[in-house]
């Protein structure tokens, strides 16, 4: 027989004013199994808690029901009190007689009766409660950061500086990401490379960071604190240990006309190449698609000229496995594919370029050494048109969202153009100017007022070439819808930021969710912006949604703190509200029949199938098994399981059944 204590709180007049607390306590005492039942003015106060603690000790209670405010308020308070009196905290339940009773009903017999029923429900539940203990999960204090753009760099440095090991994986031959391609950054116009490259070097030199460039994550198994990542180190055909980065190979390479990815296809590179002079590591990679040796089997000129014998043709990719406790995904974004903008002639007219390409033109290290020149004939454009929202906020292009950074970088582009081409005319077609941010609107005003950029509010319908000019047909909606036609020398499209090509694939490998645009989904849009639904995997930067540099860096530091907090303890403690599949003695082992249908129902991929084997290693039975590190305790599998082989700790079938039956006590 249970020994249960019922403690009814008056909460001053809050409960006592409507509910006859004394009567509730008296009636509750009559419930079988209730050893002691009492009421008090403020149960949550020190003397109130002392009443509970003393009763536990004196009467040897094995269960406690506190009838008070919502469990969302004081469940933890009362459970802690029980714990102090050496009663398992999960043997304490709260009957919500304030929010669900005294505050919402009139004073009277019915309200008191309801309060008693609510107590009765919890008493019956406590009878079925089992002592639970917090779940402890060991933590591997090493983080995996995927993506070496500014988000990944920041996250890696922050985690490393907190004293933890970091593995940074970048799929390109160098870290730096899109930020390394930018010329100057809004709203301060400081040079992107000047602020970024020191951090890139810091990453390379940090004792806590292991950098894998030209590498990709192949798969991730495990759960929070205990992941196992498989990483493919793509063969770069150059031994980084031996290579000194002297550059002999790149000067001698006979294949010199490969479009340079770093220059957004505006310049050329060799087949053995270093993406940019500031690359980290500053050592070359052979692009097998264009290398003469890989295409024809002959050449090997680089091997001949290499003074250190660092060229390693035909080396295979290497796959390594790393154990990590947390993952930060920072894979960034891409710009919308060119094929979408046939009305703007992108891909057909050489002088219609994307914003990213303009960055390379404006960059001192770019293909034109920072001079704005037309890709078609190298002349300086005297009239330039910028088209904002090219593909963003456009449901017809399947992308109703705002790419967020375009308003600002378009203003910057127009400004840079005016600074470089003093007699030039620039026009910006825009829908709205979204310049929310510190010093952002001031920046746009500067472009308009100080640098004389012509802002036209309206969309561009078409761009076509005629007699060497680009005819931009648009509308000025502030002038009563006048049609505008500009004969431009160059057109820059502020193309939408989109998810990376491999984003969907990576999300599936990591078991994280993503939205319909393939941006990774945060666990909560407001309160968990850097977490994913998979515990232990965090997000930062534009892989989540288009973001500018300050937001990206803030998110990266946020994610890094989450990782550092996770690593601050040797073990991860979790509420024991998790599902369990029953286990019993042979020959039954479990009532689970292994239909495996629950595997799909779990939102957290916490359920796997486990083989029960005999001593000879033969499979006797296959049953479901739940990883308590991944399970979040929703209980969907519990309600779904036909044979009732899964149960949820803290909300078990018996507990819930008893509560419902008690609620209808005659």
């Amino acid at each position, binding site marked *: 027989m249970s020994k249960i204590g019922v403690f009814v709180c008056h909460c001053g007049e809050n409960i006592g004013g409507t509910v006859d607390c004394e009567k509730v306590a008296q009636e509750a005492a009559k419930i079988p199994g209730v050893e002691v039942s009492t009421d008090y003015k403020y149960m949550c106060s020190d003397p109130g808690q002392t009443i509970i603690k003393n009763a536990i000790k004196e009467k040897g209670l094995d269960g406690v029901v506190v009838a008070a405010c919502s469990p969302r308020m004081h469940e933890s308070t009362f459970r802690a009190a029980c714990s102090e009196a050496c009663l398992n905290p999960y043997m304490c339940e709260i009957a919500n007689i304030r929010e669900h009773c005294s505050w919402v009903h009139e004073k009277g017999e019915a309200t008191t009766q309801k309060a008693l029923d609510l107590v009765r429900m919890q008493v019956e539940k406590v009878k079925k409660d089992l002592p639970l203990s917090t779940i402890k999960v060991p933590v591997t204090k090493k983080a995996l950061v995927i993506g070496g753009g500014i988000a990944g760099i920041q996250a890696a440095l922050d985690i490393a500086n907190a004293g933890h090991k970091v593995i940074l994986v970048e799929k390109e031959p160098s870290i730096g990401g899109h930020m390394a391609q930018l010329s100057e950054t809004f709203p301060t116009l400081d040079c992107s490379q000047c602020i970024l490259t020191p951090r890139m070097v810091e990453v390379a030199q940090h004792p806590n960071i292991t950098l894998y460039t030209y590498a990709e994550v192949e798969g991730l198994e495990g759960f929070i604190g205990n992941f196992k990542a498989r990483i493919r180190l793509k063969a770069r055909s150059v031994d980084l240990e031996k290579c000194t980065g002297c550059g002999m190979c790149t000067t001698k390479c006979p294949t010199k006309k490969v479009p340079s990815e770093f220059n957004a296809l505006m310049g050329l590179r060799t087949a053995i190449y270093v993406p940019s002079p500031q690359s980290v590591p500053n050592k070359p990679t052979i692009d097998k698609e264009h290398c003469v040796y890989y295409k024809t089997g002959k050449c090997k000129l680089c091997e001949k000229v290499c003074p250190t014998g660092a060229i390693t043709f035909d080396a295979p990719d290497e796959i390594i496995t790393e154990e990590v406790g947390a993952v930060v995904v920072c894979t960034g974004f891409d710009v919308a594919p060119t094929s979408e903008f046939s009305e703007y002639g992108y891909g057909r007219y050489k002088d219609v370029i994307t914003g990213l390409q303009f960055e390379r033109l404006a960059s001192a290290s770019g293909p034109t050494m920072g001079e704005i020149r037309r890709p078609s004939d190298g002349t300086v454009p005297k009239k330039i048109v910028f088209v904002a929202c090219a593909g963003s906020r456009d449901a017809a292009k399947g992308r109703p969202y705002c790419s967020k950074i375009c308003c600002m970088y378009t203003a910057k582009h127009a400004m840079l153009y005016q600074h470089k081409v003093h007699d030039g005319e620039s026009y910006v077609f825009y829908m709205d100017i979204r310049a929310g941010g510190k010093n952002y609107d001031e920046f746009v005003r500067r472009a308009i007022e100080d640098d004389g950029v012509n802002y036209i509010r309206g969309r561009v319908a078409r761009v076509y070439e005629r007699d060497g000019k680009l005819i931009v047909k648009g509308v000025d909606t502030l002038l009563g819808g006048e049609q505008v036609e500009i004969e431009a020398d160059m057109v820059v499209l502020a193309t939408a930021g989109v998810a990376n090509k491999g984003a969907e694939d990576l999300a599936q490998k990591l078991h994280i969710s993503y939205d319909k645009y393939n941006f990774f989904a945060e666990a909560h849009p407001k309160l968990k912006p850097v977490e994913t639904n998979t515990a232990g995997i965090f997000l930062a930067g534009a892989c989540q949604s288009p973001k500018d540099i300050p937001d990206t860096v803030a998110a990266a530091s946020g994610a890094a703190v989450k990782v550092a907090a996770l690593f601050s303890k040797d073990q991860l403690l979790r509420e024991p509200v998790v599902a369990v599949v029953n286990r019993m003695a042979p020959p*039954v082992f479990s*009532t689970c*029949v*292994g*239909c*495996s*249908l*629950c595997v*799909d*129902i779990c939102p957290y991929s916490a359920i796997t*199938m486990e083989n029960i084997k005999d001593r000879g290693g033969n499979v006797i039975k*296959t049953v479901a098994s739940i990883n308590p590190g991944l399970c979040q305790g929703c209980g969907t599998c519990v309600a*779904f399981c*036909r*044979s*009732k*082989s899964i149960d949820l700790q803290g909300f078990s*079938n*018996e507990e819930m*059944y*008893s509560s419902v039956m008690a609620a209808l006590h005659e």
Partner: protein
Amino acid sequence: MDKLKAKLKEWLEAGEITLAIGYKQGTREARPFFCRTAEDVEQMVFSNDFQPNLAVYLSKKEVVKDEKVAIVCTISALRSIAYLARENQIGQSQYKIIHLSPNDELMIFRSPWDIDAYIEEIPSTPSEEDRRVIEMLDAMTPSERWAWWAAQFSKCIKCYACRAACPMCYCTRCIVDNNRPQWIDPWASPLSNMEWQINRVMHLAGRCVGCGACGAACPEGIPVHLLNRKILDNIEENFGMPAGIAPREGAVLNTYKPEDKENFIK
């Protein structure tokens, strides 16, 4: 039929199988028949309309353990095997699955997964009589329906023949055997009988192939299979999943679509 018999004899004689599960003419209806010799095979009969769903034996370890089994399948049994394979109850090429198509073509499936392509074109449909009774019930008022079913369930003796006849009812501990808590009263009141049936068909929702073996097995003649059929209709209407065809991705109640429609959650 001759082709089928010849094949089974060949397998038995070559020792490729030790047991062929098929049908034999019973007093009134065809009944399950376990053949071990070529002579046995001679007595075998087959029609796709035969009611007992022989796939049920495949989830009964005591029958098929230590045997090399060939199973003669009606279309319904094929459907069940496809589902059983999805639920890990049948291995890749554990059984020889043999079938005569309605146009008398002998078909042998090497793997349960090969059944899908054949079944996909043939959704499971109810008999005209079943359809008529469902329409009659649909036309009733809820209280008339309640009275009709309560009268039906007052006949139930809780023998669980409906459970035993169903290939998908293979749990080793059924919910009715679970007494912590006692979900379903063990005695045979109309309500507890109904609760059992609700559990049975809810547990079969999205897994039932609509073969009707449960109803056919009832010694009291309670048409319990109509409940399954109603759910099949309901699932097709609401989720666009045709009856009797094992969905390629997930079952009905362990998957969802954010755009699922209903008109009663307000």
